[in-house]
Every structure is written in structure tokens, then in C-alpha cells.
């Protein structure tokens, strides 16, 4: 996997374009047949080498960050439960741990693993992401995700989503999803409070008085909500970014609201230019009702099958559809075409007020290398994308401040 020299090792030009690019990593890629692609590394999906190569390629392409998908259950072709397919990738490693494993092998790339809010402990997630921020020197983020899957409920056995419907989709799922979203809002709030529970400068190491910390700068978070109480403070000191980046994928106004309340970045899934504009407006509308200190960053999600030549891309997609036995579907728009056409689309859509894009490569490593070695240089030529990493910390690169602890006087 190599990318053009123009993408590497050049100095950051201050004030150059603001377009942000992220890549979503998941198994062998987002197409269910991706693992059968000629250059897929399907037998290595559970090795450190595989993930290290992917993130190093993403970093060579100067990408802002990668997200890493995760779930507390097996992948499935069905929405509401398991399947018994043996012809698709099954199994995955813990995303936070993948991120921490690759952190020391990169220097500037943001690392944004997924962790669910439904079955986990806010206290554990908070310190895990804070620790990722320490081991990556300020490049950590967290993609907060709810889980309404009944199979995952069975893996924990500690809650009954009593109103869990057996059918797929439909209005009956609303109460459950609503509860899970409310819980997620509380969860994110607790995680963020815990990140603030050590003020900067709490560690004083005052030999004179024998005090290691200034206890006035350590704070209980005393959260009490419907789903949990958490006392705090965190056991982990405030991390380099103070508040690691929180991101969410959102498909509707409830989640836009949740994102406006608790996230720094939201991923939306427009299918065309006009929809991109209306989604940005819908997010901004939710944002306006909340009143945030900083503007929510909005990324458009696109699934991509991309090559230098459009016919090669179309051919690859057809071939993978054929291998998998059905056409690939996705919640996000699936772009199939040339590097130039993808750059055109990005240039066009970014005009509606998107801050950037998260690209979901159909296959790994192929589509990722086309992004880093083809798309990135093309966007650079157009003056749309940076020519070097400037800020090393993830928040700073996205133009977000490092907030003071909410408990600081």
C-alpha cells in the first residue's frame, strides 16, 4: 500500500482549507463480500499487524481520524437478531483495545473507537477513552452507540428491554429506542463529567506538605438518573485533550438532538446534494434549541467503491455483489466510481455546510489506499485538503478548544 509522495511529509499551510476527512474501519471493509476481494487480508483480521497497517496507511494520507466499528454481539445480515451465515466475516476485536494497540504506532491520526452505551459502565468507558487519550498523546475520541439488538441483551442478561418488539422496524420500536437514547444522553453526560472530575493542575506533588494532589481540584460527579448513579471522581487524571472527541452517527432528529447535547461531531447520511443541505439544516435546528458553546461539526457519511477508473470500480462492486449473493445495501449513500468523481462530489456537497466526510471503504485495504493515494492528492491539487498535519491533537485539528473543567472555579 503506497500513496503519492505529495500526500506525505509536507508542511502544514496555515489557513488552508478546512475540509476534514475520516475513514471508518470495519473488518475487511463495509461490503459484506469484501473479505473475498483479491487483496483482502481476511485471515489476518484478528491480528495487530493488520490494524497497524491500516492506520499507518490512513496516517500516510493525512486523514483526520479513523473510526473503528464495534458491537457486543456477532455481525448479522438480519437487523433484529443473529443469522447462521458462514460466508461473511464474523467476529471482531474490542475496538477500544484495537485503538490503543495501534496508538503507539501512529503520531497524528485521530483514533475513534466505538463503545456502546447500552450494556457497559460509564465509569469504565470514561477511563478507557481517557487512557486512550494518554497513550495517543491527545488523539482519542469515542463513538457513542446504542444497541437495541435482542441478542446483545441476551449476552448480558441483566436487563429486559421489556417492550422489545419481535418484528423489525416500525413504530413499535420507538419506545425502546427512545429509552436507549435517553440512557445514552445520561451516559455521555456522566462520561464527560468524569473527564472533568480532575481539574487541570490537580496533581501538585507538593513535597513540602506531602500532598500529591490538591483535593479541592478533585470532584465527585454525583450523577443520579433513571438508569444509574455514579459518584466519581474518575480514577484517571484529566487527559491531554481534557475532553476527548465524542462522535455519533445519526439518522433522525432525536439523535441529532442527542448529538447536539453531547457530541462534538455528528455523522449524517445524505443521499444527494439537496438532502445534504436539509440534513445540515435539521442538525443546526436541534443545535439551536440546545445552545452549545461550540458549533457541532457535521460530517457526511459515504460508503465508497473507488478506483482511478470508474469501470474498474463498477466491476469490483458487481463482483462483490455477486460473491455475496445480493446487492450491497447501506444506510449511507454508496458511491461507486472514479477518484475524480468522488472528489467532485465532495467538493460539491461540502458547500452545503458539511465540515467533512467519513468514508466507509467497501474493501480494505484497497479502497483505503485509493483514498490515501488517489483521492487525497486530488483534493490537495484542488486546494481542498491540507498538505501536512498541523495540530497533533484531535480536537485542535477540528478547531475545537480544549475546554476547562466544568468544575473549575
Amino acid at each position: 500500500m503506497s500513496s503519492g509522495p505529495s500526500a506525505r511529509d509536507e508542511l502544514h499551510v496555515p489557513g488552508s482549507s478546512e475540509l476534514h476527512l475520516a475513514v471508518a474501519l470495519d473488518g475487511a471493509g463495509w461490503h459484506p463480500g469484501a473479505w473475498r476481494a483479491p487483496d483482502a487480508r481476511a485471515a489476518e483480521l484478528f491480528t495487530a499487524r493488520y490494524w497497524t497497517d491500516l492506520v499507518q496507511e490512513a496516517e500516510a494520507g493525512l486523514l483526520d481520524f479513523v473510526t473503528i466499528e464495534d458491537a457486543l454481539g456477532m455481525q448479522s445480515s438480519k437487523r433484529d437478531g443473529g443469522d447462521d451465515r458462514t460466508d461473511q466475516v464474523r467476529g471482531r476485536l474490542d475496538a477500544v483495545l484495537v485503538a490503543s494497540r495501534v496508538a503507539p504506532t501512529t503520531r497524528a491520526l485521530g483514533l475513534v473507537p466505538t463503545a456502546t452505551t447500552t450494556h457497559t459502565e460509564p465509569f469504565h468507558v470514561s477511563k478507557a477513552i481517557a487512557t486512550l487519550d494518554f497513550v495517543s498523546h491527545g488523539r482519542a475520541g469515542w463513538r457513542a452507540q446504542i444497541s437495541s439488538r435482542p441478542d446483545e441483551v441476551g449476552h448480558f442478561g441483566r436487563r429486559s428491554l421489556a417492550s422489545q418488539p419481535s418484528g423489525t422496524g416500525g413504530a413499535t420500536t420507538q419506545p425502546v429506542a427512545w429509552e436507549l437514547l435517553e440512557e445514552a444522553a445520561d451516559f455521555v453526560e456522566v462520561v464527560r463529567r468524569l473527564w472533568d472530575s480532575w481539574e487541570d493542575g490537580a496533581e501538585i506533588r507538593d513535597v513540602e506538605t506531602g500532598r500529591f494532589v490538591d483535593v479541592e481540584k478533585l470532584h465527585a460527579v454525583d450523577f443520579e438518573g433513571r438508569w444509574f448513579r455514579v459518584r466519581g471522581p474518575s480514577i484517571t487524571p484529566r487527559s491531554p485533550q481534557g475532553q476527548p472527541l465524542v462522535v455519533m452517527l445519526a439518522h433522525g432528529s432525536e439523535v441529532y438532538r442527542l448529538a447536539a447535547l453531547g457530541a462534538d461531531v455528528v455523522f449524517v447520511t445524505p443521499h444527494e446534494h439537496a438532502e445534504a443541505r436539509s440534513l445540515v439544516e435539521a442538525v443546526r435546528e436541534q443545535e439551536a434549541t440546545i445552545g452549545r458553546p461550540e458549533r457541532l461539526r457535521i460530517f457526511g457519511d459515504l460508503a465508497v467503491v473507488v478506483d482511478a477508473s470508474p469501470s474498474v470500480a463498477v466491476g469490483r462492486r458487481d463482483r462483490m455483489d455477486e460473491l455475496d449473493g445480493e446487492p450491497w445495501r447501506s444506510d449511507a449513500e454508496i458511491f461507486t466510481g472514479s477518484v475524480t468523481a468522488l472528489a467532485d462530489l465532495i467538493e460539491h456537497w461540502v458547500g452545503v455546510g458539511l465540515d467533512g466526510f467519513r468514508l466507509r471503504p467497501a474493501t480494505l485495504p484497497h479502497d483505503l489506499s485509493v483514498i490515501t493515494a488517489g483521492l487525497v492528492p486530488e483534493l490537495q491539487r484542488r486546494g481542498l485538503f491540507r498538505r501536512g498535519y498541523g495540530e497533533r491533537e484531535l480536537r485542535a485539528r477540528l478547531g475545537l478548544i480544549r475546554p476547562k473543567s466544568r468544575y473549575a472555579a
Partner: protein
Amino acid sequence: MSAGSSRRQVHLGVHFPGVNNTTVWSDPEAGSQIDFSSFEHMARTAEAAKFDFFFLAEGLRLREQGGRIYDLDVVGRPDTLTVLDALAARTDRLGLVGTINSTFNEPYEVARQFASLDHLSGGRAAWNVVTSWDAFTGENFRRGPFLPRELRYARAREFLQTARELWDAWQDDDVVADAATGRFLARADAGWFEHLGAQFGISGRFNVPRSPQGHPVIFQAGDSDEGREFAAAEADAIFSRHGSLSAGKLFWADVKRRLARYGRVPDDLKILPAATFVLGDTDVEAEERAAAVRLQQVSPRTAIAFLERVWNCDLSSYDVDGPLPAFDPAPIAGYAQGRANAPENPLATAREWRQLAEAEGLSIRELVIRVTARQSFVGAPRTVAELIDRFVQEDAADGFVLVPHLTPGGLDEFAKTVVPILQERGVFRAEYEGTTLRDHLGLQPARALGSPTLLSAP
């Protein structure tokens, strides 16, 4: 020195300096307890010295004393598994042992975290199963203080049993990933599990394929009778407190004796006491340094704080250079919170301490140093190497978990001076022979499900 193929081999791990007063943070050489570079330094030092493993402890709530966060010791630590995973990128062979509690976690998540660490480290993961159950810690978690003390091992046993079922839900060759035939999985039910027990009722599919070691190495650290029985049935190694020659021998004999009941032999369970050390060019110099370190570890305020944890009240008006309080401790608990080793019987402890202080004419600070801060090994490198070897040859230990008092350089001198002598004596590896932690510890491959467990034992 005769190369001793017949001599029992020493196992060594290093414990990253923790949040009690063993760790001297006031020393000019003391570095960060949280920056990744500190973990990296110590882990790489250990690996260069061919250590078996790097060990991280855990405590899920900041300690308090007298209703305030305790500020005299190091405060603040990372998430255990996240740091160990990052260290996997900076080391190749070193075992990575994480302490994770079985009370405020769920088996599906913990099993997948350790399986992930094992994959991402190429077979170097170990889990130190601890059972801290206290209500104080519980206040940070969803279920709150839910577990009565007497159920801590019932939950731990079933937790580990369940985790083993999850790890065994995948066979070694379940991932085929054969693009030509389109078969990713060898069988449609890879990962299927069902566990119905008193503590956990879960079923479904575990989503991490079998890891290089099959099961991570299991450590255990509780000291009660139940804790020892749990270790005898289930653990591959014990992190113990019994570091003196006599106490070590008693503990060793007690725990190894329990193994037969589970169809296990003495070599199946390694006993690794925690050990502190101070080195010097000569034994005399080491003794002098050790005395100075003890004074750093037990500052006047720390001495009073120790006493307060036994007497359960504010003793700040006492003179550390004077005698112990003449009155008996109040029969209340909870003055100090968040410690794994709170005295079980404060009254007895107080009387014991007072007697000792009177008999030997010790002040408060001298007494606290005497009862809490004696280093395990003090001497010139050769003296320390000989002592370590002797403990192992005389069945007081299978090796040690060294606890340096300085972060991050506290292992440097040991690695440079003591390890070569152990190697010269033929009791410590000069090169890693295998790649996994199981290899280093000389353990059997992971036991298959259905082997003896405490669920069916007395």
C-alpha cells in the same frame, strides 16, 4: 557456577508502582504515574531483562480517609486493559497481566477484552481475577453496592467459569477465511454459548474468535481460605503477600497441597509473592539506602495516617516521634475506604502494635516503618540474587512480582545488576524460549471446558 538444569527456574514479573506509600513520589527521580512513557519505560526494561510479565493493579475508586480523598500517596491510574494493549505495541514477548475485578464487570465484556488483548499481543495476556466487592467502590457503578462480602467468590468463580465457556465457544480452526470457497467460518454456530447459573444467565454468540493462548493466563490475589481454594482450582498463578522465607514456605505448602483435589500438580500453579527491593554496591550501602527509602515511604503524616486506619479516628494531634495512643480503637469501620488490605481486627492489630512499640521502645513513626515498610530484599546484587534463588529452591516461591518504589526507573538497576547474576546461576532465562506468557511460565495449554472447577467442588 554450575549451570543448573536441575535447579528450579525463577519467574519474575514487575508491578508498575501503585497508589500506596511503597511508591516514593517525592524523590527527585520520581516521574509521572500516568504518562504512557512511564509504562513504556518500565515494560521495556522488564522485557530487555527477559522478565515473564508486566503487572498492573486496579482500584476503582479513589481512596478516602476521614471523609476526604487521601492525598499523601500517588493518586490516579489508567484503565488497565487500555494501557496493556498499548504496551503490546512496544514489547514483543513480555506477558501483560491486568487486574480486573469480577464484581463490577460482566463476563461477556471482560472475556472479549482479554481475548482481544491476547490476539493483539500475540498470546501474552493474563487476567488477575480480584473480587473487591465493597459498597464504597460500588457507588461508581450501575448496580451500586449490590454484592454481599460472602458472595464475592461465588460470583468470581462463576464469572471465570462463564468467561472460560465464552473462550471455549470458538475452536482453533473456526475461522477459515477461504475466499475461493466463500467460507469464512467453519461452522454456523461458532461462538454459541449458554450459561445458566446462580450469578449469570446468559446465552448467545461470543464474538471474538479463539485467541493464541486459548484462555489468558489466570492470576489470583485474594488471601482468604476461599481465595486460596479458588486459586487451587482455577488459577495459573497467585500474586501473594507472603514474601518472607518462613511465611512463603507455609503459604506455598498450603496452596500446593490443595491442588491434588482438582487433579492438578504443583507446577500447574505458580506462587509469586510481591517483593520490594533496595540495592547497593555493598550490603552495608544497600541497608543505608533502604533505611532512607523507608523514611521517604513513611513521612510523619503518612505514619499518622497509618495509625488512623487502625484506630479509625483522627490522630493528627499525635507526635510521630512519641508513643502510640494509649486507648483502644473505636469499633467502627469506614474511616478509611478503598483499600484491599484493611485490618480485619483493628483492636487486635492495635494491641499488637502497642506491645511491639513498648517492647522495643519504638515511636509512632518507627513502629509504622517496622510493621509496614520492611523491604523484601536488601543488599548488593549478588546478595539479592542469592536470596531470590534460595526462596525458589526452598519452596517459598516460584518467583516474584517485583514492586519498585520509583516510577519509571525503579527496575533499571535490578535489571542491570541482579538479573545477570541469576542468569549466571542458571536459574533465570537468558533468552525467551517461547512467545506466549504460558510458554514463559511453563504452563500447560489452556484447559478445555469440563475440567475440574469449583462449581462442582467443595
